[in-house]
């Protein structure tokens, strides 16, 4: 990726690879992510080390990553020199965690492969690398990040014990250091009030669930994230296949519930979706929360063939660019919430103008 002087602008100008849902995908699972945590054997963990050591670690990792195929054209961002707003853009694009934003000193992130691969340096662990793909494809996401790991390990000695595998700052990431997660859109299960019971059952299957967007215990936009709890005692594929199996089962139940809703309550459902469209196409102010909720109905509308399938990518894109920091950077203006709500509504109206 060729980045101009302003790397953040470059990222915004490029459509992230994971936003392009393949046409064959039913669109229930929005994205698949596999993350690996690693630490260099010879250094203290970032939370325990002084800034000099963290900077040293960062250099070692950057040097090693230059020989990783997938990072051939990667962009590097030094969080020490980014503004809060720029960092928030990285966070809104799911490239860094809020932990990394808080730490700053000695941290950085490498972004490659059309933003579908990135490596955070000196977050809780020295290395947190993740591969992010559209739709349900954890195995491919793992294959990519596993290759990066292999190539890094040719140059760097990672902290490892035969008993506990790869050693991490928090014992909850021990072993494989692998967290596989799916972002999954379950509007029909939410509307049919089946969701809570279903998600509660997942806990016994070793799966963690949380709302992805939302305030407090509320979930906005009917989007959930599921991931594995344990990282030790199973191999990588077992972990991934378990999450994938659960994701597939949720997807099938969602699709079945959509058919049920359309059988029993087609008119109400369609009315609800068209009303959401009406608001999005006409509103003069939209908060992020309201946008998320209404766009969930549109996403459902695409699945029910009320809108063309190819609009899904426009919705994915809006999910990212309607967030507060993106709005401000794209419009090159510092804005308070009411102003942002106005600009957000304008942006959404423009897309809705030829959505149908």
């Amino acid at each position, binding site marked *: 990726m060729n980045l101009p002087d302003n790397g953040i602008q470059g990222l915004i100008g490029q459509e992230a690879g994971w936003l392009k849902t393949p046409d064959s995908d039913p669109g229930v699972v929005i994205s698949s992510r596999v993350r690996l945590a690693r630490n260099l054997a010879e250094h203290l963990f970032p939370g325990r080390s002084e800034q000099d050591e963290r900077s040293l670690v960062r250099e070692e990792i950057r040097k090693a990553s230059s020989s990783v195929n997938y990072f051939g054209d990667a962009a590097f961002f030094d969080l020490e020199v980014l503004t809060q707003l720029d960092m928030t853009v990285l966070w809104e694009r799911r490239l860094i965690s809020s932990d990394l934003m808080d730490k700053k000193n000695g941290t950085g992130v490498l972004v490659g492969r059309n933003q579908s691969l990135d490596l955070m340096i000196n977050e809780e662990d020295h290395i947190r690398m993740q591969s992010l793909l559209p739709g349900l494809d954890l195995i491919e996401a793992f294959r990519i990040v596993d290759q990066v790991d292999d190539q890094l390990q040719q140059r760097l000695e990672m902290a490892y014990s035969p008993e*506990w595998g790869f*050693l991490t700052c*928090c014992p*909850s990431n*021990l072993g494989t250091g692998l967290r596989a997660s799916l972002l999954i859109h379950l509007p029909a299960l939410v509307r049919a009030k089946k969701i809570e019971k279903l998600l509660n059952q997942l806990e016994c299957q070793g799966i963690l669930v949380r709302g992805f967007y939302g305030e407090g215990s509320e979930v906005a936009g009917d989007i959930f994230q599921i991931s594995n*709890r344990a990282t030790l*005692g199973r191999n990588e594929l077992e972990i991934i296949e378990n999450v994938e199996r659960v994701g597939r089962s949720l997807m099938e139940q969602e699709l079945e519930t959509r058919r049920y809703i359309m059988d029993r309550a087609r008119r109400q459902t369609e009315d609800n979706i068209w009303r959401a469209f009406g608001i999005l196409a006409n509103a003069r102010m939209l908060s992020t929360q309201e946008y998320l909720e209404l766009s969930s109905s549109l996403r459902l509308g695409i699945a029910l063939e009320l809108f063309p399938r190819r609009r899904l990518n426009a919705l994915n894109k809006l999910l990212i660019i309607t967030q507060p920091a993106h709005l401000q950077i794209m419009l090159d203006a510092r804005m308070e919430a009411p102003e942002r709500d106005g600009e957000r509504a304008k942006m959404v109206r423009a897309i809705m103008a030829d959505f149908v």
Partner: protein
Amino acid sequence: MICDLCKKNQAVMRYTEVRDSRNTEYNLCRECAELKGLAKSLNLALSSLGDMLAGMIRDISSEQDDDNAAQCPKCGLALTDFKKLGRLGCPGCYQVFNASLKPLVRQIHGINDHLGKAAPASGKIKAAPSENRVERLRQELQAAVLKEEYERAASLRDQIRQLETSGAK
């Protein structure tokens, strides 16, 4: 109270973030709260690993009181620090605190043995991922045909063909 993020404005709200395995509390001003946005991944309160971990660490604390003074020679972390923070200081900590960590690790993961990928230096042969993408797609194709989802079946068939031809090259 001053905002924990910008360290400038007056904080107006208290905000608990649950990420991965930790609760972090912030006092935020209006602006920073907005900027963090509601897109913050907030917990569904269904299953908070953070709470679970804290509980477990408390459990082992009562069992293992004897070596609380133990300290990692490399990073200086004491066992009591770990019990407070839930975080280790360096790879060496795992050796020093092995006895105290064992029951905790077992509680988190249900097991104490690493079965995944090995580090090259360990001399173990890397377990080759047995997955076969084409095989997996074939299974999906079969399922799709059985369910009479022909459109999906057609697209799966295309994907298989594509993979097979690209593999043949």
